[in-house]
């Protein structure tokens, strides 16, 4: 039972940074923009979070700075992709590389000194309940926040007019523009939101998951988040599901021996990537499944016609 709890909670925790980054990118892609710079933005968020924390400032400030840093970093991509109308793949890649470098730059000199990590919240009474307590009520605030964000984003996209506007911009920016909506402005906002979320995801890694700074500590989680969005066929609920799946893979690797799995850890670690490929193939063959949620204008530059 303890093992089960460990796996369950471990999965939730491992999934949290993915949830942040992937939900953010989902909103961005829903508006028709493809930002490959998630890895860079997450690292920037992670580094800034640690930096602020080392400066002795309180944790909430560190978290907010990380989000702000991510949003700022995303502007680099935004300007290239939305105003200069460069190839979005190249723009996103440049952000990844730049963000990786900047984060390492900020992070130099931190050493591996641990920081005051974000500790799990003790909810009076609820945390005490045997079994249910540790399973559901023993997480740090950011984990709960990730679920709140999921709810907010789902509500926003599907129950508000603004969300409707974002989705329809993703389908056809030309038609939206014809109706009179400021397509480029809205896309900028979406990109910055995605940056803030990626920053949060990175901050989670450096402030809660492994509370210290290591260069390149995201180790590809940004790319996995990107795959998660496709995996989820652009629906928020499926992002959660996919994040748990990937999170569980990570935990499997850690708890492999305890579970009696004798495969080498590398094989276990590669499962998420193989799974992603398989899912991508299946999804791409079956366009009807995707079509409804796929933002048709994804990654195509939009030039407002006169």
């Amino acid at each position, binding site marked *: 039972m303890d093992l089960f709890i460990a796996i369950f909670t471990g999965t939730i925790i491992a999934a949290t940074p993915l949830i942040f980054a992937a939900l953010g990118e989902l909103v961005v892609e829903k508006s028709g923009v493809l930002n490959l710079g998630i890895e860079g933005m997450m690292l920037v968020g992670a580094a800034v979070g640690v930096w602020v924390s080392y400066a002795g400032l309180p944790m909430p400030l560190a978290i907010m700075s990380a989000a702000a840093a991510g949003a700022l970093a995303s502007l680099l991509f935004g300007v290239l992709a939305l105003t200069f109308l460069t190839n979005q793949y190249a723009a996103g890649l440049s952000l990844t590389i730049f963000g990786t470098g900047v984060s390492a730059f900020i992070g130099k000199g931190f050493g591996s000194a641990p920081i005051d990590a974000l500790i799990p919240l003790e909810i009076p009474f609820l945390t005490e309940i045997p079994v249910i307590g540790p399973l559901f009520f023993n997480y740090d605030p950011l984990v709960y926040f990730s679920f709140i964000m999921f709810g907010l984003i789902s509500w926003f996209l599907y129950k508000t*007019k603004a969300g*409707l506007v974002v989705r*329809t911009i993703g*389908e056809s920016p030309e*038609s939206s523009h*014809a*109706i009179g909506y400021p397509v480029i402005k809205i896309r900028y906002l979406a990109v910055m939101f995605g940056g803030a979320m990626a920053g949060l995801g990175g901050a989670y890694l450096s402030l809660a998951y492994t509370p210290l700074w290591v260069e390149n500590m995201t180790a590809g989680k940004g790319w996995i988040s990107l795959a998660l969005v496709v995996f989820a066929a652009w629906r928020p609920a499926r992002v959660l599901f996919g994040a748990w799946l990937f999170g569980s893979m990570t935990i499997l690797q850690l708890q492999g021996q305890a579970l009696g799995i004798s495969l080498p850890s590398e094989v276990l670690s590669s499962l998420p990537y193989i799974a992603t490929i398989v899912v991508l193939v299946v999804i791409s063959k079956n366009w009807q499944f995707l*079509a*409804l949620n796929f933002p*048709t204008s994804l990654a195509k530059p939009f030039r407002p016609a006169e």
Partner: protein
Amino acid sequence: MPSFREIQEELPNVLETNMTPRLELRHICKRYPGVIANDDVSLSIMPGEIHAVLGENGAGKSTLMKIIYGAIRADEGEMVFDGNPIASHGPSVSRALGIEMVYQHFALFESVSVVENIALSVSGTFDLAALANRVRDVSKKYGLPIDPHRFVYNLSVGERQRVEIVRCLMQKPKLLILDEPTSVLTPQAVIKLFETLRQLAAEGCSILYISHKLDEVQVLCDSATVLRNGLITGTAKPKQSTPIELARMMVGADLPETHLDPSTTSDTPFLNVNHLTAPSDNPFGISLNDVLLSVFGGEVVGIAGVSGNGQAELISFLSGEVLFKGADTITLGGKDVGQLDAGYRREQGLAFVPEERLGRGAVPPHHLSDNAMLTGHRLGMVKNWMIQRGKANDFAAQIIRKFNVKTTGYESAANSLSGGNLQKFIVGREIELGPKVLIISQPTWGVDVGAAAFIRQALIDLSRTGAAVLIISEELDELFEVCDRLYVICQGQLSKSLDRKNTNVEEVGLLMTGLNNNSNSDNSKAF
């Protein structure tokens, strides 16, 4: 006692309030580089009047409508709405005034529902449930029931148009503009639509009805203005005119007779289409129905028809850009080519000039020498998988010289040429391939007069060397100038072949506009 002057000033006002036109256009002009879209157009519409705007494609109807709606600005002239001049115009001004427009190509979002689509253009609180109720009420009232919660991708084209119309009706318009509304409707849906429009007109809404379908205009409209080449060629009361009179105003009676050398045609057709039926794979496409077509060597054959009647689909099958599964349905020189792609068909002697020049007929950023290679490479420009650059340059230079392409040289990029010159280059390239069959779509669209004449002559000359030439065009003038035989395409069906000498514009005009009684297919369905 009021002075005479005061009485004079009073009188027009008294008269006007009884007869204020809903909309008045005065001397509207709109020019684009190389063409005058609207040339001194004036018209007026009364409240409750259903007014048709007739004309062929390219006549200037849609431009005029966009000016009225405020999507484009006129270069000259003014508009007066309900007696008040419109100073600065735009789509929001139109909506405020009560002008609504249903476009020919709808701007609906497929991935969301009907009510969500409508919500995007409606201001106020975002209450989908209330909006859905309003949608139901309005749609029922006007006889166009729709379910507000259905997703648009699930709707047929006719149903989508209903959504567009209901969206307009919900704004309680004073002037409703409809651009070719029935090109996507079944006869029953057309009847329903007309009932709706009559109901609307009875309530005082003015309706501007753009169409080229004379039979419908006669049934529905009180009055009509006819446009041709940007000019008004006449006004009429459709219910009192004959279709022939209207057709004559649309397509014009003064066509210069061209001098065509007589030629002997080949014994067997070079290009043959044998009972081609192809259902469309997307809701906006046109299904082709039992198309029979043959083109012999030594002649120029034309396919007349308003754009959107199946030309694009047919052309893609003929060019090889889309493969056709049936056997022996498309043959080149007797050989079945349905399954061969565009490259292989060129080996068989086919050449093709598409209506899209940049992006399909030529690669925009490439220079002319590269573009010459696009289809010309089989003339010895490739040896051992390597490009023979010299030969490509020579070929490009040859085209430039022979076809009078105004450019600095074969090093210039395709997208630096004017439309007319690029078209001359592409036409030249395909003709210089020495094909047995040349298919060309909209040969002189957007091309200046001089280049147009040049291209037409080149097509005639090509046929006189023994090749088969097939022209698909919307311009009847052009077809009558160069063709020996004509077909007419309408709603995916092809008419019987007409000899140019034995027909005239009126007959062809009628066939183009839907009075298709002599389709050569075995199952001519009523549409």
